[in-house]
């Protein structure tokens, strides 16, 4: 088939214009356009903040008050094995075996069921949603019911979630669970209803030893930035490229 230069240019132009127009129409449908740089109504302006979290595993005593406070603050069912935050116990035995457990998410504390002389080293690691800057759970949501806010918090829209559980599968940190009361996926919000009122997340406030710190990464003097500037820190599974915003001090290589 032969085609003249003029015809080819004509068809090409039409295709380009058509594609551009189509994209513009879809774009205008999907983003309501106007409110790009704005903040949701209220006194709190999400453009002024970008939240971060620091966990000091060297301070944690495994009392589980964080996990308990979280369930009370956020009405997470106590009779189900679901947690927005929990504490894991790592025990490296003399033989080299690593035992990891978190009975009832640490809410009832821990009891020593391995004699101390068999343990080479042991420590607690508090876990929580990492509020990734590149969240796999948000990518897999088919309906746009989970998202990262401008101030860096990953939230679930409980009215819009269809409960398909893809996000629970997608999270490499196991931070999401299925809420059987709401029939939706659910997760840590960094107590978004508290931090937007100037309060600390419930788990941070409940921690008796200051192993959990929360603050604004945009504020150079915040509790979190002070630690990030001074300590040697790491994040969980950095190789996944999820860009977590929960930073750990004293993270052992055994921690997954």
């Amino acid at each position, binding site marked *: 088939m032969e085609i003249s230069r003029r015809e080819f240019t004509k068809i090409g132009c039409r295709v380009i214009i058509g594609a551009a127009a189509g994209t513009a129409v879809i774009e205008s449908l999907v983003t309501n356009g106007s409110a790009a740089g704005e903040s949701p109504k209220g006194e709190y302006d999400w453009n002024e903040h970008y939240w971060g979290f620091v966990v000091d595993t060297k301070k944690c*005593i495994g009392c589980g008050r964080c996990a308990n406070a979280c369930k009370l603050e956020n009405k997470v069912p106590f009779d189900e094995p679901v947690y927005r935050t929990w504490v894991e116990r790592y025990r490296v035995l003399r033989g080299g075996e690593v035992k990891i457990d978190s009975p009832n998410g640490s809410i009832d504390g821990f009891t020593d069921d391995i004699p101390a002389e068999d343990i080479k080293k042991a420590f607690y690691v508090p876990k929580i949603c990492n509020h990734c800057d590149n969240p796999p759970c948000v990518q897999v949501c088919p309906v746009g019911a989970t998202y990262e806010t401008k101030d860096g918090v990953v939230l679930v829209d409980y009215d819009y979630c269809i409960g398909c559980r893809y996000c629970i599968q997608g999270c490499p940190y196991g931070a999401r669970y299925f809420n059987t009361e709401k029939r939706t996926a659910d997760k840590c919000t960094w107590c978004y209803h*508290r931090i937007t009122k100037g309060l600390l997340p419930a788990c941070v*406030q409940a921690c008796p030893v200051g192993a959990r710190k929360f603050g604004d990464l945009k504020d150079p003097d915040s509790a979190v930035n002070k630690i990030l500037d001074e300590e040697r820190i790491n994040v969980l599974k950095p190789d996944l490229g999820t860009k977590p915003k929960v930073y750990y001090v004293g993270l052992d290589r055994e921690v997954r």
Partner: protein
Amino acid sequence: MNGREPLLLNGEKIMQPHLKRAFTLLALVIIAFIFVRSLVVPQSFGQYGWYRGDSVNEIKNFQVEYAGSAACGEENCHKTIYSVWAKDRHKTVNCETCHGPSEEHVGNVRIMPPPANDSRDYCGLCHFKRAARPANFPQIDPETHGENLKCTYCHNPHKPWFI
């Protein structure tokens, strides 16, 4: 036929009827899609991104349960015990960590939070000897320390080193 003649010329001038029908149908489907979508998708969807913008404020409006220690006594009702606690070693343990969430009580003093758990096991959540705890954290061996008495028998939880 000369090979150089453009083949499309004829097709361009009069669109064939079966193509016309197909394109009309496609246009109708697209219009119907846009119409249905505008009815089904919530107003605020896409306001800030590919999600329902209103849900941010819905989550912001959730009920707060923990009021914070300052609400208890910094300049309020429980000033005396607050000033004792704030000077002593348990000052890192906030009121509500033992006394339970009290925002409701702050709003209405007639609603009492459940009494603080003063059992031996509750103190033990932090202070019983455990292999995984940092060694410099104060811990006791529950078998040998305190003869199974309530900790508060000897220790004042607000001022743990002196009765």
